[in-house]
Structure formats: structure tokens, C-alpha cells
């Protein structure tokens, strides 16, 4: 569930990823509302003629739909941005509404990988995971890109 924008800038390199979001909030509410309304009308109709046991199932289903909608909304604003500017590397991460910002020196930053393919930037005891919004292939592409840039400038 990611969208990638990889820009090659004159001043440096910027990597930006965010969750795909082709559904705006208004449309999401409309979709969820229409599905919930139809399910409830059907369940209420049958309850009116005595078949009330459809209501709990409609309720569970609407709750599941609601949970899916909430996850989409929570993910919608999440992003990850990594920018090279001179000797500085700026990493901005927004996940579940919480934004964090890290700054590394290009000469000291080290790229590290975890056992399950996770990737992080580390320097002076600080570490930030990057490439979380992309799959394995995307992370490998990012590693390729960063490795050259970090390595060539390493002091």
C-alpha cells in the first residue's frame, strides 16, 4: 500500500513514500455509510418479521468495515521522506499521526539491515528505520541508491 516518488534533484536526492490513497475521506465515508446503511436496513427489515438474529451478524460486519475504514484513514497521512542536502541527511517519518524528524551527517551515517529485510540509518547511537512503506524490492532499490551515496562521500 505504497506510492513512490523518487526525485533526482539538482541539490541532492530526495526519497518520498506514502501510503496509496486514491480514496478521499468524503468518498470513504460515503462508501462506508452506504454499505452500513444497506446492511442495517436489511437486518432491521428481517428483525421486524421476527428474524432478529441477522442483526448481530450485520453489526459484526459493519464493525469490521469500520475497522478497515479507520485503518485507511490512519494510514492516509503517513509518509517517509529522506533528503540529502550537502552533507546532511534529513529523515522525516509520520506514522499513525506521529511525526518524527532525524538529521544525520552524510560522512558518518551507516546503512544497516535487519534479519527480516528491514533497513535503517544509524549514526552516533541514533537509528531510524527507513523503507517501511515499501516491499522488499523497494527496500533493495533504496539500499542500492543510498549505499552509493553514503559510500562515495564517507570520510
Amino acid at each position, binding site marked *: *500500500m505504497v506510492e513512490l516518488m523518487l526525485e533526482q534533484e539538482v541539490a541532492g536526492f530526495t526519497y518520498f513514500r506514502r501510503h496509496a490513497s*486514491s*480514496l478521499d475521506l468524503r468518498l470513504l465515508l460515503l462508501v462506508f455509510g452506504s454499505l452500513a446503511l444497506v*446492511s442495517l436496513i436489511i*437486518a432491521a427489515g428481517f428483525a421486524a*418479521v421476527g428474524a432478529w438474529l441477522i442483526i448481530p451478524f450485520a453489526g459484526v460486519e459493519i464493525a469490521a468495515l469500520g475497522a478497515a475504514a479507520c485503518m485507511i484513514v490512519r494510514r492516509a497521512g503517513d509518509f517517509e521522506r529522506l533528503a540529502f542536502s550537502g552533507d546532511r541527511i534529513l529523515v522525516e517519518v509520520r506514522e499513525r499521526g506521529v511525526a518524527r524528524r532525524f538529521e544525520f551527517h552524510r560522512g558518518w551515517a551507516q546503512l544497516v539491515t535487519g534479519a527480516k529485510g528491514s533497513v535503517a540509518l544509524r549514526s552516533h547511537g541514533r537509528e531510524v528505520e527507513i523503507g517501511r512503506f515499501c516491499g*522488499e*524490492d523497494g527496500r533493495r532499490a533504496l539500499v542500492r541508491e543510498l549505499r552509493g551515496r553514503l559510500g562515495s562521500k564517507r570520510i
Partner: protein
Amino acid sequence: MEAVHGHTNDHSHDDHAHKPSGIMRWVQSTNHKDIGTMYLWFSFTMFLVGGVMALIIRSELFQPGLQIVKPEFFNSMTTYHGLIMVFGAIMPAFVGFANWLIPMQIGAPDMAFPRMNNLSFWLLPPAALLLIAAQFMPGGGAGVGWTLYAPLSTQAGPAMDLTIFAVHILGMSSIMGSINIITTILNMRAPGMTMMKMPMFCWTWLITAYLLVAVMPVLAGAVTMTLTDRHFGTHFFNAAGGGDPVLYQHIFWFFGHPEVYIIAIPAFGVISQVIPAFSRKPLFGYASMVYATASIAILSFMVWAHHMYTAGMPVEAQLYFMYATVLIAVPTGVKVFNWVATMWKGSLTFETPMLFALGFLFLFTLGGFTGLVLSIVPVDVQLHDTYYVVAHFHYVMVAGALFSAFAGIYFWLPKWTGRMYNETLGKWHFWLSLVFFNVTFFVQHFLGLAGMPRRIPDYALQFAEFNAISSIGAFGFGLSQLLFLYIVIKTITSGEKAADRQWEGADSLEWTHLPSPAPWHSFETPPVVK
């Protein structure tokens, strides 16, 4: 964590080098292509199980009298043949198509909720095992028909409880699958992939998922009320306790009729991809196809009682349901005429997918016509519960859904496997299926018109000839499907390399933007659709 060293391979090589292997690849997979593959193999396995049940039925009906099985077992076979084919074979087949194709067709890297996708598949095997295990319960399988009508179902043996549990699990799987499909299609489209640029297959699945979300709680409620009537002293469907067995029929068919379209609408989607590709023309009347599909879905909620004209209802209600049912012919006609118009003056070729699509078009239309016949109340009163109805719904389900699934498999097999099937064998499969299907089911119209009731292991001598013909056709049709299995396995193991765009008329993203076979991870960088 460890520092990165060494050379990183190019993208295409990575894709295969890092693909997990072994059984855990399939158990834990969250990859939409793997899960799609599992759905398709599962559905084919269940198709064979349901097919064996059909052959047991047709063996018994080959001659009048009771020769092979006991009546109770025969009833059990008719019940589980229906349940397994509908819930175990056809529905999972189209969910398999959805898993494989929707992300690739909208330019997404995977489904919106990959872990839920894994779970919704892995719920299916336990449900299938429950349906099969029901045969071995004391008293045998529940011989209540796939509709599980009360009061028979409230009085059936313990196999009924397993069946109810299986239906619940299948329903949960469908709900999760539907939520995933809706969120994937709406939220994960690539930049520029507007709703009205989506391939028809995606549209049909979006509408189908809506239908599933609307009706699955109804089915779950119906079987739960059956369960509580059986074990917890409620009287929802027990007339002696103030309940109403006809209420069950209303509830079931409120689910059951949309269920017909839950099966048919994705089939329409497949056909809407195949016919333009082999006509070398865009789909005629794309927007009208979308609106017609939505209209069919909406109307499917308003016609349920045409399945129960003989259950007793006011004449006004019969008239309403008759006219509403006839109305469905309008959007269905729009679709059929659009497919024909797509072919009109096209550069047609007749490879196997196109043959199956044309077979679908001809036979599904025939099934639609017999549906119109049955929608007329006085005719239906005569033909209700006869073999005419059996013939009608097999023309819709087998020639409609199954032929469409075959068309889709032959169409996308080169993209899925990277290998081309044997065209000659594919055509043999089509012609054998077409001929034997009609040998099996066309004669059943005559049996129904002559008054042969359905769901009976024995019959009057006057029906003997047509039943013998039908049984021969059924065995021929069943054996023809083994040829299909051979073709698929041969394609996977030793098929010739397929081109990235095997069909030059195919223009959706999976053909224009991805190699064959489609890489394990695709569209991590979304395409920009112009």
C-alpha cells in the same frame, strides 16, 4: 542488524531470488499472486469433489429404479454437490481471479490488507473439510438440499451442524475477501486510474463485493436461526412453536438470488476482458456496461420470491416479483448486446479463451431465456421443482460461470505462468465441454417439461431415455475436465515461453506494463495511467 555489504542484484533477479520457498511460502503468504493461485487450485479441487458427487447422482439416474446408492445418500449428494460447487468451487475461483488480477489491473502492489487476505483463504480448507466430514456423521450427510430449507434442516442429523458451521466459515471468508476487494479497488488505484478507466473486471468485482457485504449477514443469520431452532429451543421456523418455515425461504432467497449474481457478475467481468481482446476493439459501451452491472446488482435484491411462487403468496406479490424479474432482462440484454457490438466488425480470432467466451455468451443467454420462462408465474407453477429448473440454473452456473472461468484461465495463464498452453488441446477441451454440457443439460429441459421432479433417485419409465442421455453427457463432461487439468499442468511444466503481451488486443495494465510471468512483486512503483 548488520551493515550492508556486497552487490545488490537487478530488480528482476531479486524478484525470484528472494521469493520464499517450501510449504511455509503458501501457509504464510501475504502475496496476492500466491493467494490467488491457492484459491484457484482449491476451487479446482472442490470442482472435482463436487463433480464426483454429480457423477454419483447421474449414475443413479442412468436408469429408473434404485441401483447404486440409497435414497438418503442420493439426497446427501444433491445437497453437498450444490453447496460445494457454489461455495467451494465457483465462488473461490472468481476470488482467485480477483486476487491475481485486481492489484495488477489497478496498478497496486498488493491487496489493501494482505494478512486478512491470507486468513480469508485459509478459512476455506477447514470449511471444505467440514462439508466432506458431514458425510461420515451418524445418519450420513444432511439430505436437505443446498437451500437448507426448514423444517427438514431443523430435524436433520448431526451432519447439519457441521454444514451450518461450514457455511459460517465460508461466509466469514467471503466478508473478509469483500472488504479487501472494496478497499483495494477504491483506495489503491494508481495515479490516473480513475473509476471509469478501470478494467470491467475490477468494476464487476467491486459491485460483487458490495453484494456480498449486503447479503452475507442474512445467510449467517438464517443458518444460525436454524442452529438455535435445532439445539436451543427457539422456534424461528417451527410452526408448532409460533414460527414460520416459509420465513426461512424468504430469508434464504433474499441471500440466494443475489448469490446467483455474486457468481455471474465476476463472470461478466472476465468475458468483458476476453471478447474485446480477441475482437481487437475496445469494449463497446463501457459506461453502459458499468451501469447495467450495477442495475443487475440492485435488481437482484428485489426479486427473491420468484424462487417461491408455489410457497404461497398474494397474487399482487406474485405479479410484482414476476415483473421485477422480467425487468432484469433489460440490463442483462444491454450487456449481451454490448458484447455482440464489441465483436461487430472486429478483427476476430478464435483462440481457446474466445471460444469459451462465445460458448458463455450463447449458453448463458439460453439460460437467461429459460429464466425468463420461469419468471412467469403460471408457467413456474407448472415447472417448479422440475428438471426444467435444474437445466436452467446449470446453463447459468456451468455454461455461465464455469465457461467464463475457463475463458479467464486460458486468457491469463500465459501471464500467470509465463508459459503458453497448447492451443489444440485447449480447443479440444472447449468443444468436448460444449458438446457434453449440452448433452447433459439440454435434455433436462424436456424432462422438466414432461414433469420429472428434481431431487429424486428414482423416476417413472417415461423419463428413462433422456436420463440415460443426460448421464452419458455428464460422464463425458467430467472426463473432459481431466483434459483441462492435463493442459494446465503441461503448461506449467513444459509450455512454450509466453510473450509479455501474449494477446495483442489485451490492453489492461497486467499486459501492457508487466512481463510474463508477472513478477512476484509488481507495481511497487505505481504506473501513471494517462
